[in-house]
C-alpha cells in the first residue's frame, strides 16, 4: 500500500454535492483517498500533513475541452499580438498596440537569433491597430539581412520583409492571387491565404505539423496548462501517426509531466472507412495520462471569417453564406458510421446551419443504431439557439461553447457578422444549462489564450473588448461556470468518473488557487491567481 499524504488548504471547493467544502484531502496512489478535515485519513491509518497549500484554495484540476497542442509549439517564436500572453515559462508578453512596438520586439528577437535563421513571429492582429497597416517597409526596418515573417493571429495572412519575399520568388511582376501590392504596383509584403503563403512558409521551414510530434512542444503545452490550473487538456485535431504516438506516450508518461492529454483524431486526415478502425486501435493504446479514441470532425469555417454556415438571415453585411469543409451528406454518412462503431465525435460547428446538420445526422444515427452513452459534442456551437439545445438535450448531445469569443470578437459579431439580435445569444451558456444540455466552455488555444478562469469570467460577465455586456440574459453564475470548466468538460471527454470533482476514488488532480473564486467579485474572476496544479498527487507549482 502506497504512502498517504494529506494536503491542507484554506478551502477546498470539491464540486461534490455530498461534501461541497472541505479543508483537507488525502491522496494515496495518485488518487483521492478521503476528503474532509485534518482527520480525514485517520480511518485509513493516518498520514503526514502537507501544509504547502495552507493559504491556498484547491479546486478540481481544470479541464480544457477544446485546445490544440500547437499552443505549446508557438513559443519558440516571438509573440507580437495585441493581447497580453504568458509563455510556458511564465514570462508575460505585453500586448502591442502600435507598429513601433512590434518593430522593437522583432528587433530584439533578431538580435538574439543565429545568423542563418529566419525570423518568424506570430499572433499579430491588424484589426486592433488603428495606424497604418503593417507592410514590408516596417519589417525591412527590423532587418534586411534575413527573412522576417509576421504571421497574423488568424493564420490566414502574413506580412513579410523584402528578404522573405525574395526567398519566395515574388517580385513586382508576380501576378498571383493573394500576393498583395500597394498603389505603386510594388509588393507591399502582405501574403493572403494559404496558397500565397505556401512558398514562403516552405522555404523558412515553419511546419506546424512537425511541432506536434516534438517533445518540447508537448512539454510546453504541459507548462502552459499548469500555469492556468489545467490538469486535463485536449488536442482537438491530431494526426496521431505512429511516430507522433510514440512521442506522446513517452512524454505524457514521464514523471515530470503534469498534464493528462486527450488528443482527438482528425477524421479528415484519412479515408472515411479507416476512421473508426483507427480510432478503436488508438483507444486501445490509452494510458492514464494519454486518452485516445475520440474523433474530431469539422463541418464549417469561422463566423468572423465569414466561412461559417448560417441559417436565414445569414450575414448582416450581405456576405454570402460560408463554406462547408465537408459536404453535409458526407458528414451524415461519417457520423452514421462512427456512431454505429461507437466512436465518440467532437464536431466543429460554428454556424447554426452546421449545428443543425450535425444534430440531424446524430438523430438519424441514433434511430438506426440505437442510443448509447455517446456524448457526441458540438464544438464551438456559437449560434445554437434554445430550440436546438432542446433537441440536443433529448439526444444526449453535449455542447462546448466558445465563450471567449464574446470578449475577443463580440463587438465584431454584433456590428459586422451576424448582427445584434443573434450576437446577444451567441455562445448561449444560459440556454444550454436551462435546456438540460451537458456543457463546457473553451479557449481553442492558441486561437485565444488557454485560461479556464478567464473563460469562466467571460461566461459569467459576457463583456466584450469594448466593455459592453453582450447578452446579459445568457450570463451564468460563477458556480455554474466553475462546474463547466471541471465536471462539465470532464463529461464531454467521458472522464467524469475519474476527474472533475474532488471525491474519493478520483484522480488527485487539483488546481491550486490564490483565492476562493466563489468569494471574489465575479468581475475579478479572471484576475484570480493560479499557483499551479497537483496532477495525480504530484505537485507542480509555478
Amino acid at each position: 500500500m502506497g504512502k498517504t499524504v494529506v494536503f491542507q488548504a484554506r478551502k477546498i471547493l470539491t464540486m461534490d454535492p455530498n461534501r461541497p467544502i472541505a479543508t483537507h484531502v488525502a491522496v494515496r496512489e495518485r488518487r483521492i483517498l478521503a476528503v474532509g478535515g485534518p482527520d480525514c485519513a485517520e480511518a485509513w491509518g493516518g498520514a503526514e500533513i502537507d501544509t504547502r497549500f495552507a493559504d491556498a484554495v484547491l479546486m478540481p484540476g481544470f479541464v480544457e475541452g477544446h485546445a490544440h497542442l500547437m499552443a505549446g509549439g508557438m513559443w519558440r517564436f516571438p509573440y507580437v499580438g495585441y493581447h497580453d500572453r504568458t509563455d510556458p515559462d511564465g514570462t508575460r508578453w505585453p500586448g502591442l498596440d502600435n507598429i513601433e512596438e512590434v518593430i522593437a520586439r522583432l528587433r530584439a528577437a533578431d538580435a538574439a537569433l543565429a545568423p542563418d535563421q529566419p525570423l518568424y513571429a506570430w499572433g499579430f492582429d491588424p484589426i486592433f491597430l488603428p495606424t497604418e497597416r503593417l507592410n514590408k517597409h516596417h519589417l525591412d526596418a527590423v532587418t534586411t539581412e534575413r527573412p522576417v515573417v509576421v504571421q497574423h493571429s488568424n493564420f490566414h495572412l502574413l506580412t513579410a520583409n523584402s528578404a522573405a519575399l525574395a526567398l519566395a520568388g515574388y517580385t513586382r511582376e508576380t501576378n498571383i492571387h493573394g500576393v498583395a501590392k500597394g498603389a505603386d504596383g510594388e509588393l507591399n509584403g502582405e501574403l493572403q491565404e494559404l496558397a500565397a503563403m505556401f512558398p514562403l512558409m516552405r522555404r523558412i521551414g515553419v511546419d506546424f505539423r512537425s511541432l506536434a510530434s516534438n517533445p518540447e512542444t508537448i512539454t510546453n503545452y504541459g507548462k502552459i496548462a499548469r500555469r492556468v490550473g489545467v490538469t486535463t487538456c485536449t488536442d482537438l485535431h491530431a494526426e496521431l501517426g505512429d511516430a507522433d504516438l510514440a512521442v506522446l506516450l513517452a512524454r505524457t508518461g514521464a514523471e515530470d509531466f503534469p498534464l493528462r492529454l486527450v488528443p482527438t483524431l482528425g477524421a479528415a486526415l484519412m479515408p472515411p472507412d479507416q476512421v473508426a478502425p483507427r480510432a478503436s486501435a488508438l483507444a486501445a493504446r490509452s494510458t492514464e495520462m494519454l486518452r485516445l479514441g475520440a474523433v474530431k470532425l469539422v463541418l464549417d469555417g469561422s463566423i468572423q471569417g465569414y466561412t461559417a454556415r448560417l441559417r436565414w438571415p445569414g450575414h448582416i453585411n450581405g456576405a454570402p453564406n460560408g463554406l462547408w469543409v465537408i459536404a453535409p451528406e458526407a458528414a451524415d454518412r461519417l457520423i452514421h458510421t462512427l456512431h454505429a462503431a461507437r466512436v465518440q465525435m467532437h464536431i466543429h460547428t460554428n454556424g447554426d446551419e452546421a449545428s443543425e446538420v450535425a444534430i440531424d445526422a446524430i438523430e438519424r444515427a441514433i434511430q438506426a443504431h440505437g442510443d448509447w452513452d455517446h456524448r457526441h459534442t458540438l464544438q464551438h456551437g456559437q449560434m445554437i439557439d434554445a430550440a436546438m439545445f432542446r433537441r440536443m438535450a433529448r439526444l444526449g448531445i453535449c455542447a462546448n461553447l466558445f465563450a471567449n469569443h464574446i470578449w475577443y470578437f463580440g463587438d465584431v459579431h454584433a456590428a459586422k457578422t451576424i448582427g445584434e439580435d443573434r450576437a446577444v445569444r451567441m455562445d448561449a451558456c444560459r440556454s444550454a444549462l436551462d435546456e438540460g444540455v451537458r456543457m463546457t466552455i473553451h479557449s481553442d488555444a492558441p486561437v485565444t489564450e488557454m485560461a479556464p478562469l478567464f473563460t469562466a469570467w467571460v461566461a459569467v460577465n459576457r463583456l466584450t473588448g469594448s466593455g459592453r455586456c453582450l447578452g446579459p440574459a445568457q450570463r451564468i453564475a460563477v458556480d455554474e461556470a466553475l462546474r463547466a470548466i471541471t465536471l462539465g468538460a470532464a463529461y464531454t471527454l467521458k472522464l467524469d468518473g475519474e476527474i472533475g470533482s474532488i471525491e474519493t476514488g478520483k484522480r488527485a488532480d487539483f488546481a491550486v488557487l490564490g483565492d476562493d473564486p466563489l468569494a471574489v467579485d465575479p468581475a475579478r474572476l479572471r484576475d484570480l491567481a493560479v499557483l499551479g496544479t497537483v496532477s495525480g498527487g504530484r505537485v507542480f507549482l509555478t
Partner: protein
Amino acid sequence: MTPLPVTVIGGYLGAGKTSLVNHLLRHADGRRLLVMVNDFGALNIDADLIESRDEDTITLANGCICCGMGTELLYAFGDALDRRPRPDALIIEASGVALPDKIAAVAQAEPEMRYAGIVTLADAAHLAALLADPMIGTQVAAALKTADLVVLTKGDLADPAAARREIARQSAAPVIEALHGRAPVDLLLEPRDDASAHSPAAARCGGDEVVTQTAGPLLRKDRQDRPYSRQCRPRPGAQHDGQSDGQSDGQSGGQHGSPEHVGTDHSRAFAQWSAAGGVVDRAALMALLAAPPPGLFRFKGRLRLVDGGALEVHMVGGLVDCRPLAHLQETRAVAIGLAPLFDARAFERHWQRLRAASLNRAQP
C-alpha cells in the same frame, strides 16, 4: 529542378472523380503520376497493375504512385515536392465541396510547381438538383466556375444537353462528355516531353493525321493508341457543328468558343498540333496566347527565341506560365485544342506567321 505540374480534379460527391483517377492511372502513357486522393479505399485498381501497396500508398508498375492525402492539403503539397524522384505530374483529387481554385492557387504561387489546370466533373443526372440545393449549391457552382475544363459524366443516365445548359450558366469552361471517367488524358494533363517528337510539323485531329504544308518527314500515328476513343459513347450530332444542338439560351449565343460545340467521341474531342525547329519572337507568341485561337486549350513550348535566349511556355485555359531556359537544342511546341473548334491547320498558319515575324525581327 523541373517544376511539378499540378492538375486539380474537382466535382461533387458521385461526379466520378475516383473513376477518372483510375482512368488516369491506367492511361498515364509513360508519365509518372503522383495522385493524391481523399478516399484511398475507394480506388479500384486492377491487381495486375499494382507493384506494391501499403496502408496509404499504392505503387503501380507503370511508375505512378497513388496515395491518400493523409494530412492537411498544404503539407501534402510539401510532401509531393519532397518526393524523390520527383513525379512528372501531381494530380490532386479535391474533396466534394472544396474550391479547386484555392488548391490550384498553390501551384501558381510555388515556383517549383506549375498550374496544369482545373478539371471539374459534373454528374449529368444530379447536377441541376445539386446547383439548386440551398446547402451546397454555391460550392458546386464555384467548382464549375473556376474549372478550365468540365467533364460531364453519367450522360447515359440523363439528358446531357440539359446538364450542358446548367453548366453554361455557371461556367465559361469547355465541356466534354465521358462515361466512367474515360476522359482524354491529353486534355487533363500537360503534354509529355516527347509529345512533339513524332513529327516536326504535323497536326493530328483525333486519330486522323493532318499534314501541314511544312516540309519534313512524317510519322504516322496509329489511331489505336487512344483506347478511350473507342470506349466513349458518341453523342448524336457530335460529328457536326454543335450549332445544330438546339441550344437556345442567350448564354453562349454570339460567343465564339461556345462549350456546346465539343462532342463526346474522343476521336473528335480534341486535336493536337505540334512543331519543331526554328526560333520565335517572345512578344508575338505572348500576343498569340493572350488572344488564343478558338478551341486552343493547352500549349506547351520549349522555344528558342529570336534574341538568342530560350523559354519554356505553358498555357492552359488561358493561364500562361513562362520561364526562361538556360539552354535549348531545338524548339518544340505542342498545342491541344478542343474539336471541332480548334483548327490545327489554322494554328499552323498562326505558327508560321509567328516564325515569319521572328525572321523579320531578326533581319530588320
